[in-house]
């Protein structure tokens, strides 16, 4: 049985490898670094700063030093995100295929447990579970990597001044890109399950934005704590792996007793997962009242995170991380 498993997985890897190569940048010279088949960062002029240089009417913007450094850091975020993604890709045999395979494996495991052992009879359970796993996976990895963002980049920070928020944003962009990639798999899955495209898909960017917004705010706050309290990493690891049971990944929150539902809706992960499901499975608009609640909460986290990051900007580099 074990041999069969290993045999099959090796075969699977062999079959998937060409796809990894396809998505990966191909051949020399990397003057044009093709990424994900045609995503060409080398050739593309991404910098708005450059645009401003070319348009004389926008010259006044160039004179604002704050704005200039903002564009500078925005450029760094884009290029560093690209560099990190590429670097991660090159380090593994299957590269970006893992971004899809990992949630699929997780979903498969829980699917077997819930349908075969616990006899769950919910319709569309695969899609239901996959959405939950992917969205929760985004939250958990975002919180873990975001919290470590400052510590992991201590090397660069010790050599040059860089606002610490840059590193948090880089790790969030990195994850969001992977998340979008695993969402792509979702669509064939939806069509296989006979679900239709509807106008409610228009809410997807908004959900994605809320998700990004919340996670960035939370990681900003956490990233300021971890350098001073490294044990927090272990705490976070435990927290993240247990909290999946309270985020409605395996059940809908509507099945929770009424008096407890409000408590569940305080959890942003639960709200986001439910929003994705209502749009993608039921073709219904998400519950706007939850959004109305979480935008200010996100801003609140942002403000706290921003404030502390400003405070420790040139102090955190003194401690040995």
């Amino acid at each position, binding site marked *: 049985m074990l041999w069969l498993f290993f045999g099959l997985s090796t075969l699977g890897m062999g079959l998937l490898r060409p796809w990894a190569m396809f998505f990966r940048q191909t051949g*020399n*010279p*990397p*003057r044009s*670094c093709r990424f994900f088949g045609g995503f060409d960062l080398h050739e593309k*002029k991404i*910098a708005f*700063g*450059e645009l401003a240089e070319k348009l004389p009417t926008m010259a006044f913007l160039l004179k604002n*030093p704050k704005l200039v450094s903002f564009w*500078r850091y925005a*450029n*760094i975020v884009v*290029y*560093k995100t690209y*560099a*990190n993604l*590429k*670097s991660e890709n*090159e*380090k593994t045999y299957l590269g970006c295929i893992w971004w899809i395979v990992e949630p699929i494996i997780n979903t498969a495991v829980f699917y077997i447990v819930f349908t075969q052992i616990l006899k769950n009879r919910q319709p569309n359970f695969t899609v239901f579970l996959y959405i939950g796993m992917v969205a929760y996976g985004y939250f958990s990895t975002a919180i873990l990597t975001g919290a470590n963002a400052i510590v992991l980049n201590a*090397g*660069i*920070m*010790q*050599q*040059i*001044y*860089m606002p610490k928020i840059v590193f948090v944003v880089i790790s969030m962009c990195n994850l969001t890109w992977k998340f979008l990639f695993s969402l792509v798999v979702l669509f064939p899955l939806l069509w296989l399950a006979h679900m239709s495209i509807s106008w409610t898909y228009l809410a997807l960017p908004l959900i994605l934005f809320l998700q990004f917004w919340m996670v960035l705010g939370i990681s900003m706050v956490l990233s300021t704590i971890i350098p001073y309290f490294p044990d927090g990493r272990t705490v976070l690891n435990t927290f993240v792996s247990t909290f999946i049971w309270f985020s409605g990944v395996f059940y809908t929150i509507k099945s929770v007793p009424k008096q407890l539902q409000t408590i569940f809706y305080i959890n942003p992960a639960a709200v986001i997962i439910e929003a994705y499901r209502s749009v993608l499975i039921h073709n219904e608009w998400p519950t706007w009242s939850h959004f109305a609640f979480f935008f200010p909460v996100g801003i609140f986290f942002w403000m706290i995170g921003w404030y502390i990051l400003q405070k420790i*900007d*040139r*102090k955190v*580099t*003194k*401690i040995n991380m």
Partner: protein
Amino acid sequence: MTSEPIISLKNVGLKYKLRRPVNGSKIFWALKDISLDLYKGETLGVLGSNGAGKSTLMRLLAGIIEEDKGVIQRQEDLKMILLTIGMGFENVLSGRENAILGGMLMGMHRSTIEKRLERITEFSELGEFMDQPIYTYSAGMLARLGFSVAMEVNPDVLLLDEVMGVGDVNFTEKSRDALVEKIKSDMTVILISHSAEHIKSLCTRATWIHHGVTQYTGTVDEISERYDHFMHTGEGLKPAAM
């Protein structure tokens, strides 16, 4: 000097918190009382023995860490960069991409680096290897790439930790020459060293730091003489202020 200094430090101190006490205290003042002025276009040498606080001072000037007492006045938007070799390099990326990444981190605009990539390739003598991932590089090649990128950075003030040469004999000379040329140009440079020789040949002014306190500031000859005298005899420190 008649013009205003572009950066001026007055009685600046900086402390580190330690896990274990030194001399009965867990707080260690790496810089105790530093005062110096830097003028546009000059090359200021900072002399000091090991543990004098030179590197801490550099990090402080580069804005990486913050002072705990005293006043630092900077001209607005002053870009000060500590010259580092191979900062932020990613192993699996190509030399070209790493050059762009490193240059961007050091404050260059992306298009600027791309325009200068030819020069970087030429100076580093890497040729075709520019398109190879840098894990294929030897230590010398890596150093050459890092150095060539660093040479393209033009901040308002360049902070230099020793005059370094990298790579084999041939490239060591070449890189040293390039660096010396950069120092001798009208760029403002702060150069730290523990050897009076370096400072003598390159700087226009010098200051001597000992145990986190500026001792004397003046002409290169005067300061290196004082420093050498102190290093050999252990005498000649500034009388402690009451």
